[in-house]
């Protein structure tokens, strides 16, 4: 080749390189622009629900206590999050609620609401709002001037939202929310004698059985149900992964070239793996939940079927890379076929198989959460249920934290097991 020709080739290859360097970002930009319009990202700002965002954020670190007065009977109830399970038993006194014919509710900023036949709320920096609910409506009066936008007033309903709390008055019901920090009733519900006691009091008081029992059967946070759900999710991952591996191992031998001389058998096994992997976990979950109904068994089987495909492929590839020398060595001592497999093949592939299987154990814990959300089992189900109610966001946060902790724990557990087992195999003979 002449110098000129070499220069020309170099120029051409440089020009091509330059083109790709500029073309690749341009293609990426073009694609993202297309997606921007296809997904209507611009219209997202209209769809974003700021209210939902506020509820979600404030719910995760605070809880509210409802003080509600039935305007027909005049009865007043105090309950956490307005739930029957969180109702304060009659006779409990809270230092910010003064129950009576006219109930006085102190709010965090020093203002208070008087709830009786007439509701009075003296709002700092605005003025006094009164309302007298009756058959003709709520009959509210406001200070002179325009009604600000944090007050929502109509004939039959008045809602006032301030930083300190929220007051709603309708004909039948007057309700005040006051916000507090934390997750209330996380350890004990109100009907438990241990509610409100400090850790030191509980630790020195004995009665550990009763304390545990009250915590475990907490009706608000359902600790025992949550623990079962986590266990179910891990069970799905465990059964699915190891069950899949156990079924895939013999099939892997059938799909490996050096163990199955019969081409058609090999072909059939491989296409089966492709099919099992190609039919996604989602489809397996749907098909199986039709037969077995919702629950952890369905999830386990769905993970198992997908994993048979994945493991079968990995195992057969590992088997094809087995070193023949070791098998020949074993054969030269007069070993029978079974012994040749046992001492010539298995020790070679165990580290590869184990490390793959344990790696999938972690990723399947995540899949089990997702499958649980679809088919109804484990922590995935609890999470979707909590999200669907659209109000128990502190529970959603709690479950999300538990899920992250569970996946990370499974990750480090499988990593630890991998190091232990594979190291152990390397040390000595079998």
């Amino acid at each position, binding site marked *: 080749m002449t110098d000129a020709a070499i220069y020309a080739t170099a120029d051409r290859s440089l020009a091509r390189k330059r083109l790709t360097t500029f073309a690749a970002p341009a293609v*990426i930009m073009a*694609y993202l622009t297309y997606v921007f319009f296809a997904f209507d990202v611009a219209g*997202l700002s209209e769809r*974003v629900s700021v209210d939902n965002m506020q509820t979600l954020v404030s719910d995760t670190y605070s809880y509210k206590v409802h003080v509600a007065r039935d305007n027909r009977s005049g009865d007043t109830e105090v309950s956490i999050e307005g739930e029957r399970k969180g109702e304060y038993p009659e006779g409990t006194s809270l230092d910010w609620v003064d129950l009576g014919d006219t109930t006085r509710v102190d709010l965090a900023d020093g203002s208070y609401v008087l709830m009786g036949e007439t509701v009075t709320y003296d709002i700092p920096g605005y003025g006094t709002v009164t309302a007298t609910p009756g058959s003709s409506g709520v009959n509210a009066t406001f200070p002179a001037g325009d009604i600000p936008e944090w007050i929502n007033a109509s004939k039959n309903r008045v809602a006032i939202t301030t930083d300190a709390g929220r007051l709603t008055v309708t004909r039948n019901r007057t309700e005040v929310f006051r916000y507090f920090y934390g997750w209330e009733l996380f350890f004990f519900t109100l009907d438990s004698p241990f509610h409100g006691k400090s850790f030191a009091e509980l630790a020195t008081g004995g009665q550990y059985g009763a304390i545990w029992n009250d915590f475990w059967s907490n009706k608000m946070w359902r600790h025992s149900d949550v623990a079962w759900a986590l266990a179910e999710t891990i069970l799905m991952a465990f059964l699915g992964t190891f069950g899949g591996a156990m079924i895939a191992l013999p099939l892997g031998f059938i799909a490996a070239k050096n163990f199955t001389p019969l081409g058609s058998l090999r072909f059939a096994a491989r296409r089966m793996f492709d099919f099992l992997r*190609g039919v996604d976990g989602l*489809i397996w979950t749907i098909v199986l939940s039709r037969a077995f*109904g919702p629950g952890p*068994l369905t999830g386990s089987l769905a993970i198992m079927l997908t994993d048979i495909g994945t493991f079968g492929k990995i195992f057969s590839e590992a088997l094809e890379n087995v070193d023949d020398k070791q098998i020949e060595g074993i054969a030269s001592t007069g070993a029978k076929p079974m012994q040749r497999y046992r001492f010539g093949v298995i020790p070679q592939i165990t580290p590869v198989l184990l490390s793959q299987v344990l790696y999938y154990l972690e990723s399947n814990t995540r899949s089990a*959460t997702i499958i649980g959300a679809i088919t109804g089992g484990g922590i995935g189900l609890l999470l979707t249920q909590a999200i669907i109610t659209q109000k128990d966001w502190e529970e959603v946060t709690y479950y999300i934290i538990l899920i992250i902790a569970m996946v990370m724990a499974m990750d480090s557990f499988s990593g630890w097991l991998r190091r232990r087992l594979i190291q152990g195999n390397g040390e000595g003979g079998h």
Partner: protein
Amino acid sequence: MTSAADAPQTTTDIRTDYLAQMRHKRMLNLILLLVFAALMVSGFYTADARNAGGFWNGWRQMLDFPADVVGEAIERAHLLPGYLLKYLPSLLETINIAGAATLIGALIALFASMLATRGLAPAGWLIGPVRRLLDVLRAVPEIVVALVLIFLLGGGPVPAMIAIALHTVGALGKLFSEVNENASLKPVEGLASTGGSWMQQMMLGVVPQVAPNYLSYALLRFEINIRASAILGFVGAGGIGYDLRNTMSWGQGKFDEAAAIFLLLFGTIIIVDQISSHFRNRLTHGKAYKDKGAVL
């Protein structure tokens, strides 16, 4: 370690010693195996007991639903091409969710991985926090983020895209930073000596070395993300998964449409798998990149 340093051992001693060790080891292995088997069996029975329908009854019905679907699909086979066409836009949306999420996730992962690699990070104290962040992103299942975002942003493809992209950042960030560890630092030093900024050192010194491995991992992620995108559709995030749930809930008589969706999904996954594994093979075993120590 056996009782070594004492008197010289006879062959018999060594042999008894060895056999004793072997027995011990076999015993341990047997116990481990028994524990494992017990866990599997009891786990199976627990799962069976807590499931709505039992295994032994369900086993016989397992083929009923596929048979229904296939039966209806064959019965109205002439409608199938129409259905395939009808659900093509949804399929495209599912693929786009996966594609955009992979792309955005990979781009963010690229920078995150540089920040998480010793020798490349502009500040050493960043490495720990960035790695922990990647761990958390990886640990959160996509569905968790997607469900929360659907509540905030309404249904549609964007929540799914963000959810998958976040998970992708975590998964690819870790793999990328493992690739970065093997990258030679010489080009980076060379660029630094000429006064190149950190950005220039990374883009011109590191990325060309690691691009093939990055691409290969990103393609594998794309495969995984298509499956994830279909699943998220099923919980309300748009795309083919959403259609699948709707056709399924119509029940018997509409399973021919479900069959069309199954076919589309199955076909897409197989085709993307094939294409991506072809390109990954070229990227990692190609002539030009052979000596780079490809991982996949």
